[in-house]
């Protein structure tokens, strides 16, 4: 009896939560007039809302599509679960959207279901991560190896400025082992750094993309090298920032001399760290939003438009100089 009552109460509460937790937010005004105005349904299958990069992506997508009253824009969250993202795309196909945008969680698992969307005649934009077969209308992405190369060139340039010639001691804080982005960002940078025998990697630790773990690795790196460090290259901005905090606590003077380099360059994360002088540079990993909206709107409105199969977006360095140039 007691257990039955509790079960009933729990059920009631969770149903209420479901009611108020509905997050599907079309941006067309509600009501009959809104429905008339909205001609197009655009569904964005995001692989995991709970990452800063992706949260920013969602925010910018919603803002960009809000400029088009004829579009109803819906985001689904795959919650870092490939099976969940697949079933969400299957549901999306049933709703026959005019445009499907997918940020796939994994290249192999999402390939088939995106093929189904194409078969159903839905124009599909694949964002940022490639899939195993070209089951998309167009693929918009950025090259992590090239970002690594840019970071490598920046490190060489800064070391030359600091030590007179390209020589110095580098600490690398890598992303999660076995993740392609981490491998690419390493490969690109070391393609450049390996050309200079006097640039020495004195420590390479894995921060798994987390600032907290990177800080512990940086403490080990600092103690093991007794603070003889010229460069810290973090595979993302939080790890580079964590390294800065560690060095600053141990030796504030040294923290001003060490070159901290990050990747991603989100406006209120990496770019903010550069603006505040914590990082020497960050390299933007584009959110791909503007390009996706531009190409997407053309697909919707212009029946004769044929998009390219791939668009590779350029990265850009963010340094105190580029930030100053922007505000001028």
């Amino acid at each position, binding site marked *: 009896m007691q257990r039955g009552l509790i079960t009933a109460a729990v059920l009631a509460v969770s149903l209420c939560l479901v009611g108020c937790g509905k997050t599907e937010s079309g941006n067309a005004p509600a009501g009959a007039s809104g429905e008339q105005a909205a001609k197009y349904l655009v569904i964005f299958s995001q692989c995991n809302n709970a990452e800063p990069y992706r949260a920013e992506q969602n925010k910018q997508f919603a803002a960009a599509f809000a400029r088009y009253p004829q579009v109803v824009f819906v985001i689904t969250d795959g919650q870092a679960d490939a099976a969940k993202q697949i079933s969400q795309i299957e549901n999306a196909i049933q709703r026959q959207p005019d445009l499907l945008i997918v940020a796939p969680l994994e290249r192999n698992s999402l390939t088939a279901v995106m093929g189904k969307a194409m078969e159903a005649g839905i124009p599909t934009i694949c964002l940022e991560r490639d899939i195993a077969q070209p089951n998309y209308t167009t693929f918009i992405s950025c090259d992590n190896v090239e970002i690594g190369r840019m970071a490598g060139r920046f490190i060489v340039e800064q070391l030359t400025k600091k030590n007179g010639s390209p020589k110095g001691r580098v600490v690398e804080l890598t992303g999660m082992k076995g993740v392609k982005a981490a491998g690419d960002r390493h490969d690109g940078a070391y393609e450049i750094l390996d050309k200079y025998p006097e640039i020495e990697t004195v420590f390479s630790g894995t921060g798994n993309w987390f600032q907290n773990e990177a800080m512990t690795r940086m403490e080990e790196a600092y*103690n*093991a090298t007794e603070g003889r460090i010229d460069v810290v290259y973090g595979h993302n901005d939080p790890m580079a920032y964590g390294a800065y905090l560690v060095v600053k606590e141990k030796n504030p003077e040294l923290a001003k001399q060490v070159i901290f380099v990050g990747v991603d360059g989100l406006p209120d994360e990496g770019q903010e760290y550069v603006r505040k002088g914590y990082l020497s540079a960050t390299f933007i990993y584009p959110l791909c939003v503007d390009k996706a909206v531009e190409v997407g709107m053309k697909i919707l409105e212009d029946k004769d438009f044929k998009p390219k199969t791939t668009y590779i977006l350029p990265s850009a360095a963010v340094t105190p100089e580029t930030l100053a140039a922007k505000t001028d």
Partner: protein
Amino acid sequence: MKQWLTNFLTHRRDLVQSLIVLAILFTFAVIFSPRTRGEYTYNLFGLSCTVEHWPIFLKIENLTDLLRANSPVAIIALGMTFVILTGGIDLSVGSTIALSAVVCATLLVEQQTSMATAMIASMVAGGLVGLVNGGLIALLRIQPFIITLATMIGIRGLARLVVNNEQIGLVGGQSDSAIHFAHIMSQKSVVIGAFLLLAIAFGLLLWGTVLGRYVRAMGDNARAAQYAGLPTRRVLAAVYTLTGLLAGVAGVFTCARTNNGNPNEGIAAELSVIAVVVIGGTSLAGGRGSVTGTVIGALVIAILTNILGLNNVDANVQSMIMALVIILAVVAQTISLGAVTRWWRQWRGSTTN
């Protein structure tokens, strides 16, 4: 004194064996540590002494670094020891770290509250998660694994919802109390000191109070404890609430250390916490274990991670070595010294005869 030592060696065999593992590991760390390039001067309690090519592992700076880095996990492990002693488990502590960290950062930066308010609110949030865990386990009599698995998922969602999937930076805003908070609560003396005080408090709680005895009794035989009229429901509610509270404390320290309220903080931290407790000799079956053991377990993990890091061992190899040490540490506790001596005598006997 001799009497006490004999007593300790015979009755606290599990602790003695954990201490041996710790001592061996410590020696290894000293031997395999990289050395300082020049001289190193110790400054301890006014005494100073200068040594050349000193093991970096033994530098005060390094030892305090490793203690601070591992304090959040070690603090939660104190509570987890109680939970595991009752025969339970708490999988939700990692998510609770995140909830506490984002509550703390949000209050400091967006609500501009004082340091004390933010910290108390974060710990209360952690304690409430624990109370929900304990309450549901006690009232519904559902296995703790299932209840805390559910709250692990749900609380992670709540933490992300609170900050809308974003991270709240403490230094980004204009809040003085946030900067003040990050500075004070990341000090080594504060973090390590908090861990030591909590370890003593929880050690006394388990060793010298009625609650401690009830916890052990329930782990030994839950049904017997119930028939004997022990307030098992209230004990369960208490131990899970305490663990949640400690996860809240860990979240506050993590927030200060990273200058950041990150809803993805503490993913898989529950596993590190459980590893610490298990290495400390606490049995997952309940009933057997101690807070001292857990402190030793935390030191084992901390020293091992640090010495592997100082030598810049590959991350994947580190994971494999970690696995080996967990198994070895637990095996070392199950081998009985008496059995070894008996076996030795028999073996000698059989060869001489």
